[in-house]
């Protein structure tokens, strides 16, 4: 019993540590990557005894700066809610991760350890319900600041997130229809099957349209360029206008944690989660009949690594998108959400349904 609790605690620590560290790293990656994309150098000044570690010390310096800065609450703000909002914004990003499986079942000493913090039967529905809570942090932050601009920012964010949540939710219905499950570990396991003996049955393969729709909606949910109207930090300013110090830092971190979550979701839903093509529980089985047996532990380690790599890749990809595309106008944003993504997701469901029926 105690061992079970310990195992869960270890998994928790692992997952939390992974998100938070990745989010922190992403603040560095964002700057370094954008610099490279724009033929610049990026952060390179913070150093310890002259060692700059490719600017890796900057996130640490930033953290120290944010924590030691004045924590300012506007005179007529709602103090309790103003203080709480960043935490509310941070919370969904961390909790969503609980149901994402990052590896297959690990067998040690006759014990089966599910590499997933919580194996919920409602899996993906849990994710969506938690993700929709993210609006609260933003909305409360904007409203409680007692500032027109932050309130407007909060409104923009709420309208945008509600609009895109619909497209996001509907875009994966097709996927659920095909795999016939909402449990994420089951979903990932099914993606290990091969179609016709050679093509992995990944989400992207069976639902390519859904992938694009989901990607699009996920970026919008993240409030990142080209959908960064809620914040528009360079000019329009958003819901966190009145935040300073680490409270601002938490909004900021929540955004990066959201990226990690989005990447993890993309990986899990469309890119086979921890699956490596042709790697079965006992080793590689290539289509040509060639096979290579591997010890169980190595297989699990490989799978976890594959999952991590995929997540990192998507983080990189999301940053790439953010630094490539210009921002939408608000009417364009709404048009895209309601007039294109929403009908397309419905069409996707319909067509998927037809095909599933035809194949059955």
């Amino acid at each position: 019993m105690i061992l079970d609790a310990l195992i869960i605690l270890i998994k928790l620590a692992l997952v939390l540590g992974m998100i938070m560290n990745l989010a922190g790293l992403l603040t560095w990656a964002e700057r370094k990557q954008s610099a490279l994309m724009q033929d610049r150098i990026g952060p390179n000044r913070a150093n310890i005894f002259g060692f700059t570690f490719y600017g890796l010390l900057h996130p640490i310096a930033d953290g120290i700066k944010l924590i030691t800065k004045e924590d300012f609450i506007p005179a007529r703000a709602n103090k309790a809610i103003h203080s709480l909002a960043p935490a509310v914004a941070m919370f969904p990003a961390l909790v969503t991760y609980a149901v994402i499986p990052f590896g297959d079942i690990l067998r040690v000493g006759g014990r089966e350890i599910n590499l997933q913090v919580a194996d919920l039967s409602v899996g993906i529905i849990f994710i969506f319900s938690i993700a929709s809570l993210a609006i609260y942090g933003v909305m409360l932050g904007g409203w409680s600041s007692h500032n027109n601009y932050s309130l407007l920012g909060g409104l923009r964010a709420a309208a945008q997130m509600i609009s895109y949540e619909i497209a996001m939710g509907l875009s994966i219905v097709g996927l659920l229809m095909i795999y016939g499950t909402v449990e994420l570990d089951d979903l990932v396991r099914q993606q290990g099957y091969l179609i016709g003996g050679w093509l992995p049955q990944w989400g992207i393969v069976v639902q390519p349209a859904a992938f694009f729709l989901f990607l699009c909606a996920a970026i919008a949910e993240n409030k990142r360029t080209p959908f960064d109207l809620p914040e528009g930090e360079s000019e329009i300013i958003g819901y966190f206008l009145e935040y300073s110090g680490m409270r601002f830092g938490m909004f900021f971190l929540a955004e990066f944690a959201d990226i990690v979550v989005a990447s993890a979701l993309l990986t899990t839903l469309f890119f086979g989660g921890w699956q490596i093509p042709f790697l079965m529980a006992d080793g590689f089985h290539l289509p040509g009949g060639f096979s290579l047996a591997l010890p169980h532990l190595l297989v699990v380690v490989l799978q976890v690594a594959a999952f991590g790599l995929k997540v990192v890749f998507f983080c990189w990809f999301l940053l790439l998108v953010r630094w490539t595309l210009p921002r939408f106008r608000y009417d364009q944003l709404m048009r895209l959400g309601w007039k294109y993504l929403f009908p397309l997701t419905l069409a996707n469901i319909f067509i998927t349904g037809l095909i599933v029926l035809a194949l059955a």
Partner: protein
Amino acid sequence: MAMVVKDNNGQGFLEKIYIPEIIRGLLVTSRHFFKNLFNIKQVPTIYYPEERTEVKWGLSPRWRGRHRLTRKDDGMPRCTACMLCATACPSHCIYIEPTESADPAVEKYPAVFMIDELRCVFCGLCVEACPCDAIRMDSGIYSLTEYSRANFLYEKDVLMATERGYKD
């Protein structure tokens, strides 16, 4: 000049559906990313405090730095305190107090000439407006740093003591 209204919804089907263009854009940026990732040396960034453009390439003569006031041969300011610069200045940052000159041919000159460099937007309109070539922005000084706001009120003596910052 007639106004050209450009349809920026894209030409042709492929541009209109947007996605191929997005992918093209992503390819461009990722090409830069990988190119620079493996060869950071070719990035044209100048490491500012250690390297300086004026040393590396020299400043362009059109470049606008901190103002200076030119002098006549006798060391008096060329400025006649006509206030045209103060009139042209969009940020109202030039303050002049003219006074009677002992020489009736000169008639007047600025007793006080102050520029609030914090309010200045470095547009150069004052230089354009001056009929006497008295105010210039060719000092080559681009790093304006002071320890207090008050110090940014540059007075006549400082402005006149500044020399032309670079050769043509």
